[in-house]
């Protein structure tokens, strides 16, 4: 029989664990945005070596599962003598992985802008930096908002993978909970509800931002 009380009681500890899920996802996407922007800039740069590096970066990180990346990164650190908390390792790995996707999102949005947008800025004598900061990136950001929100939602779900390096986020917490209560069904359904709730909130936030930046 499905026990409503076990189901409801699971929410307490799982909500507590959701802090880590959110922290990893938000820091991950933040780091991913920074690195992804740099990688995108490298990809579009006139220097062939930078372009090649960016292409390698993207194909490697998109081609290897995040779970494997996490394990490789986590077990490489001690080998090279770095004692890094699991949380930091998790955020860095998630952020690096996200950077590959985000750089491609940027690239697509930038390619979608009419060439005349930059030309109008160049024609009045703007510096290349100003052309990027004032004209291209703000528009590319608006264009890519739906894709970025999508990426954030994917990260929230992918963050369940960091349970393998021992972080007590939603998935890991529900495994522990299931083991102590012997009620896996109730606990995992509760976990599913929390993921769904978080992602619905993100979708609403995305809709709001899109509406606000619509022109």
């Amino acid at each position, binding site marked *: 029989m499905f026990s409503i009380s076990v189901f409801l009681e699971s929410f307490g500890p799982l909500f507590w664990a959701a802090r880590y899920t959110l922290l990893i996802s938000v820091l991950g996407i933040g780091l991913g945005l920074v690195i992804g922007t740099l990688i995108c800039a490298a990809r579009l740069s006139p220097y062939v070596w930078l372009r090649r590096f960016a292409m390698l970066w993207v194909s490697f990180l998109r081609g290897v599962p995040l779970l494997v990346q996490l394990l490789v990164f986590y077990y490489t650190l001690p080998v090279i003598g770095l004692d890094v908390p699991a949380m930091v390792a998790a955020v860095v790995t998630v952020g690096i992985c996200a950077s590959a996707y985000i750089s491609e999102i940027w690239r697509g949005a930038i390619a979608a802008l009419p060439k005349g947008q930059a030309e*109008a800025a160049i024609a*009045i004598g703007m510096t290349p930096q*100003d052309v990027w900061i004032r004209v291209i990136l703000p528009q590319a950001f608006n264009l890519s908002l739906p894709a970025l929100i999508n990426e954030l939602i994917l990260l929230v779900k992918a963050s369940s993978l960091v349970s393998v390096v021992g972080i007590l986020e939603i998935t890991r917490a529900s495994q522990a909970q299931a083991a102590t209560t012997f009620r896996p069904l109730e606990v995992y359904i509760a976990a599913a509800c929390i993921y769904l709730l978080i992602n619905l909130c993100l979708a609403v936030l995305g809709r709001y931002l899109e509406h606000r930046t619509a022109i």
Partner: protein
Amino acid sequence: MVSASSVEIRKVNKHYGTFHALKDIDLVIPPGKVTCLIGPSGSGKSTLLRCVNFLEEYDSGEVLIDGTMIGYEAPGKKMPGRKLREMRRSIGMVFQQFNLWPHMTARENVAEGLIRVRGLSKSEAHRRAADALAKVGLADKMANHPSRLSGGQQQRVAIARAIAMEPRLMLFDEPTSALDPELVGEVLNVMKTLASEGMTMVVVTHEMGFAAHVADQVVFMEKGELVGVDSPDRILHHPEDARIQSFLRTYHERNSF
């Protein structure tokens, strides 16, 4: 009125791969005058115009703005970006597709260059932007984003954006070709005012009426070659070259009903 620039184009060539887009173009654009470039599509008019502010890089020859070559310091040696930007600052350009920045209001579009390029304070830039917009008859549309403006209004904002920078030369690349017919007049009127103030203007256009009435000289191009340069009357009403005659015949046939 600030002084108007002159342009001298000498033996300019441009290739796209194996396609020879501009063939040994020689042309003098006198200061304070309106020069219209006409000719069939693909004749190189726009390419030539874009060489004048070096949005298009020419392969050989020289484009001189008030005697200074734009784009190159010497043949084959590119000019540093800073110097090129300095030259572009006094050359306004208006595009066929307007190219207003959609994330800024009309006023912000005009003020942007004043702030970033001319280094004016935000308040001063916005004051001048308001003046420029009033000049093109859009004082009441300053707070609108481009998406809330008609094509003709957008193009007038684009003209305001260019003239706010106080250029000495204005380039127009088919400024009315993307407009609905009933909106063409308002843009041409703004251009006429500008011409009457003594601005040097180079206009790529299919508006033969504008060329006939406003231009001081008309240039006819075909297949990357400069076929004729003369007064509007001689090019448009008494052309001697068969290529110009044939172009005008097609034009009149298309516009008669």
